[in-house]
């Protein structure tokens, strides 16, 4: 589980240019981490690439925070 968090953190830090300690499970991409609508699309793509999963558009729309991403990724992997 924490492996997912670490990988998600690394992706967020790289794409949004924020400090790692800001990337907590409750952090919202847009409100807390400064992402815009295109940034979130790119993040979802990066998650797909990293974890070898597909995240359909309607599911992507519900991934608004780091925690949402981790939950989706973990349930997709299991």
């Amino acid at each position, binding site marked *: 589980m924490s492996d997912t968090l670490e990988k998600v953190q690394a992706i967020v830090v*790289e*794409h*949004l*240019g924020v400090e790692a300690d800001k990337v907590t499970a409750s952090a919202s991409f847009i409100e807390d981490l400064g992402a815009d609508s*295109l940034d979130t*699309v*790119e993040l979802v*793509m990066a998650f*797909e*690439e990293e974890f070898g999963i*597909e995240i359909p558009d309607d599911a992507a729309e519900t991934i608004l925070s780091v925690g949402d991403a981790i939950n989706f990724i973990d349930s997709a992997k299991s």
Partner: protein
Amino acid sequence: MRKVVITGLGAVTPLGGDLNSSWKNLISGKSGASTITKFDPTGYPCTIACEVPLGDGLSAHDGSFNANDWISLKDQKKVDTFILYGIAAAEMALKDSGWKPQTDEDSFRAGVGVGSGIGGLASIEKTALLLNEKGPRRVSPFFIPGALINLAAGQISIKNNLKGPNLAAVTACASGSHSIGEGAQMIKNNKADLMLVGGAEAAICPIGMAGFSASRALSTNFNEMPEKASRPYDKDRDGFVMGEGAGFLVLEELDHALSRNARIYGELKGYGVSGDAFHITSPSEDGDGAYRSILMAINDASISKEEINYVNAHGTSTPLGDEIELRAVERAFDSAVDGLAMSSTKSSTGHLLGAAGAIEAVFSVMALNENIIPPTINLDNPSVETKIDLVPNIAKEKEIKSVLSNSFGFGGTNASLIFSHYYN
């Protein structure tokens, strides 16, 4: 009648990551050419180009360029390189002018115009390969906005809060000059008081090099001696050397500049335009388009031909083009060719395509202020006989009265700009 003066300059060129380094190297007769380092050019007909020197940038004080000085790493990934160069050079020019918008009204009255010939070609090439390999869902949402030519102006307007005219001239090798001329028109027509204008290009990528070689535009005889390849007017010239970078000017309405005690580099006095209606890549043999563009600029400037004593040529080092422009200049100036000097700075910088007209305008304004004419390097054996001083190999100190800068693009699109001193 509203007058347009120049109050800021900025440049990123193969001679240096900033204007000072670029100008110093230009008047020292240096070449920005080398074997291509951005990709492995083995097997390409032309393996050389003029690349912007990358390094530690500002902190190193060595004339190198580092994008981190101008734009955050995360934002760098969202734009093609031509936009990075544009953002940097634009910021240099704006900083040089000492102006930035303080009020909403300031922002509404200040605009941006940035040209490029081919824009995000490298990004398009990379993404096409990615699409082919991994399918559409792997294409970045930033691909399109990062490759579009007008996003250079878009990004610069966002970063500097400029809400006036937002434009992008796309006229191949004349894009930079048209951006400047059209920006001046905005000011003259009272649509803006200040315009940040220029051009940016970064097309040194496999498809760019392959494409221009295929059109037989690039030099192929000097792959072993890159610094000798760009040789306008020389009998051994065999095509141009691709360059990259960006050039910017701050154009300002005269009273706007005077009221804030701006440092005025000079006046943009004349702008001429024309079309050849002849061939997709070659200029018309009689140089008619160039001739008319030059004359229109001179008429627009309302100065006598004798007032212009330096021409910064388009002069790309192609077998046909150089001489056609030379004859057009001779015809336009007629008896005033005595005392006229003309050099091609593409001999040093290579051909920056959409940014060429812009960096050459910057160099023209520098020549006007420094009274130094940059040389045409590699001019060992001129293939032409002319009364015009082509300034071979060594820069010349001369009191410059006014400068004419020419740019001619594929498709037969022509632009001529005239810069003069501003006297209070």
